């Protein structure tokens, strides 16, 4: 892998982006958005986002999670000045979202989920145009395009039409487009959706590099492993509201204790569920669809012998037992009452 941490940004720009870690980069209070939707003759008001408070610190990768329809994309589009909020306030990179969206636009980058490149243009043309739309001079735009092409390992394809690129190459062009003006913060809407595992891992490296360059990164995702591995802090959104916010480790710690997973047949699962629900050290349990139980307990090490005794005593056929720390999916389950995978 080529390292380009230092040559991506000219020194002057590094100084411009420079900020203290921990300084607020996004601060929203009570951000709201409703839509009127028409079903037949009736018009209904749908509250897509109902009062969102977010705090994103400078220099962090912030993950925004939630099932489809939770209001993630609406929130993101409001923060990126693409739709106007109905209520609430937001300060982004020091500019007021509602009073001065033009200034917000100058300071942020945005990479949409569905792509943003034109089939008939080349990556270089797209990059130069995008830089110039931010008011950058022609010569400087060309310099930046060349640098971005190198940084994202696109030089080889730079002058080919975008329609000839692979999914991963195209996504890299799009990220490059989103940061060509060296914004303080970049919004990435599901940056790895639809990528193969290798391109996905590559994209994670790119995103970490943006952070290393001093940028704040705000990503939405519905991959919990991605949020866990990549994000410094996350917020979980459900039904238009933020239901949890914190570091992945902190959120997992919040569901105190451990998770014990039992491998059981379907009938044994039902019996074991009745049996173990009565145990005082089991704070919560969940039956898995194809058999098996997930038990939330305070201390796995002491719970396991007791669970074994109960299950064995009842003559149930236990195939496996696993002990693990709560995952983000467990956090999601606790906060929203369902698993993100189901939703």
């Amino acid at each position, binding site marked *: 892998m080529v390292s380009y941490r230092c040559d991506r940004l000219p020194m002057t720009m590094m100084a411009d982006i420079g900020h203290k870690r921990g300084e607020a980069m996004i601060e929203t209070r009570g951000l709201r958005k409703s839509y009127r939707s028409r079903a037949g003759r009736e018009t209904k008001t749908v509250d897509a986002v109902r009062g969102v408070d977010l705090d994103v610190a400078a220099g962090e990768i912030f993950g925004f999670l939630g099932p489809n329809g939770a209001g993630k994309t609406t929130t993101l589009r409001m923060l990126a000045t693409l739709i106007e909020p109905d209520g609430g306030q937001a300060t982004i990179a020091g500019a007021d979202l509602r009073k001065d969206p033009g200034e917000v636009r100058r300071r942020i980058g945005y990479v949409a989920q569905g792509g943003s490149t034109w089939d008939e243009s080349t990556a270089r043309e797209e990059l130069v145009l995008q830089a110039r739309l931010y*008011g950058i001079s022609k010569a400087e735009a060309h310099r930046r395009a060349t640098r971005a092409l190198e940084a994202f390992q696109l030089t080889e394809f730079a002058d080919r039409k975008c329609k000839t690129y692979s999914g991963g190459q195209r996504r890299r062009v799009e990220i490059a487009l989103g940061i060509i003006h060296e914004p303080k913060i970049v919004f990435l809407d599901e940056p790895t959706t639809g990528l193969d595992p290798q391109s996905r891992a590559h994209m994670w490296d790119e995103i970490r590099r943006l952070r290393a360059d001093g940028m704040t990164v705000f990503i939405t995702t519905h991959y919990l492993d991605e949020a866990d591995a990549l994000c410094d802090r996350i917020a979980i959104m459900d039904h238009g509201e933020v239901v949890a916010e914190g570091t992945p480790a902190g959120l997992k710690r919040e569901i105190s204790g451990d998770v014990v997973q039992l491998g059981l047949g379907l009938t044994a699962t039902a019996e074991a569920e009745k049996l173990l629900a009565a145990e005082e050290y089991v704070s919560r349990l969940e039956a898995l669809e194809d058999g098996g139980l997930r038990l939330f307990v305070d201390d796995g090490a002491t719970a396991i012998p007791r669970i074994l005794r109960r299950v064995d005593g009842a003559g149930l056929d236990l195939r496996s037992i696993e002990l693990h720390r709560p995952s983000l999916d467990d956090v999601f389950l606790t906060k929203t009452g369902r698993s993100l995978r189901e939703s």
Partner: protein
Amino acid sequence: MKLARDTWLIFERQLHLLLRNPVWVFVGVFQPVMYLLLFAPLLKPALNAPTQAEAYKIFVPGLLVLLAIFGGLFQGFGLIAELRAGVIERSRVTPVSRLALLLGRSLRDVVSLLVQAVIITLLALLFDLRVFIGDLLLAYLMLALIALMTSAVSYGVALKVKSEDALAPLMNTVAQPVLLLSGILLPLAFAPGWLQGIAKWNPFSWAVDGTRALFSGDIGNDRVWQGLGIIAVLAAAGVYWAARQFARSVR
């Protein structure tokens, strides 16, 4: 200043993409050329014109206005493709002027129309059409304003309906009566009184009359400045409305 720079950027890109596939300019000019070659020869006897050149003085201006109207109205299709590719959204997160997003595109359409108009005029010259260069330039101004208006309206509607399936019937429905009520193919002088009465309310019929007057060398005719005035006002209104669509939320 910023507006001019931004407009130029968008115009330059759009023109560049058009030139990469210049075949579209010729596809656009194909139909009018067919009219010129296969329909216009019927006109001398039909219109009772003294010479073929006289018939062309009536027909060619109408044909050019037709080209300007249709060329403009169907530009929205390209924009829907851009919307789908995410190019418009990518522009809208930058501080680029929203008016420039429209004007850059519409001006590209105007330039492409003028190229087509020149091709048709040159062909008509081969058929003995004669027109003063000053009059011709003024007629081109009229065409440019018409194309500016129709392409802006088409872009605005495209941003509203967001789908080709809705845009095509909508534009056809608008274009059909506008075309028939403007005396493009035959002068409305032949029309019965009631039809002339309705056509008076069609701004394009004023534009056609004005353009015809210019092709006949009658620059002092009231219809010239009236047509130019009406179309200029409508073009400004169309541009204003369509630019607002670019500023509003679009996916």
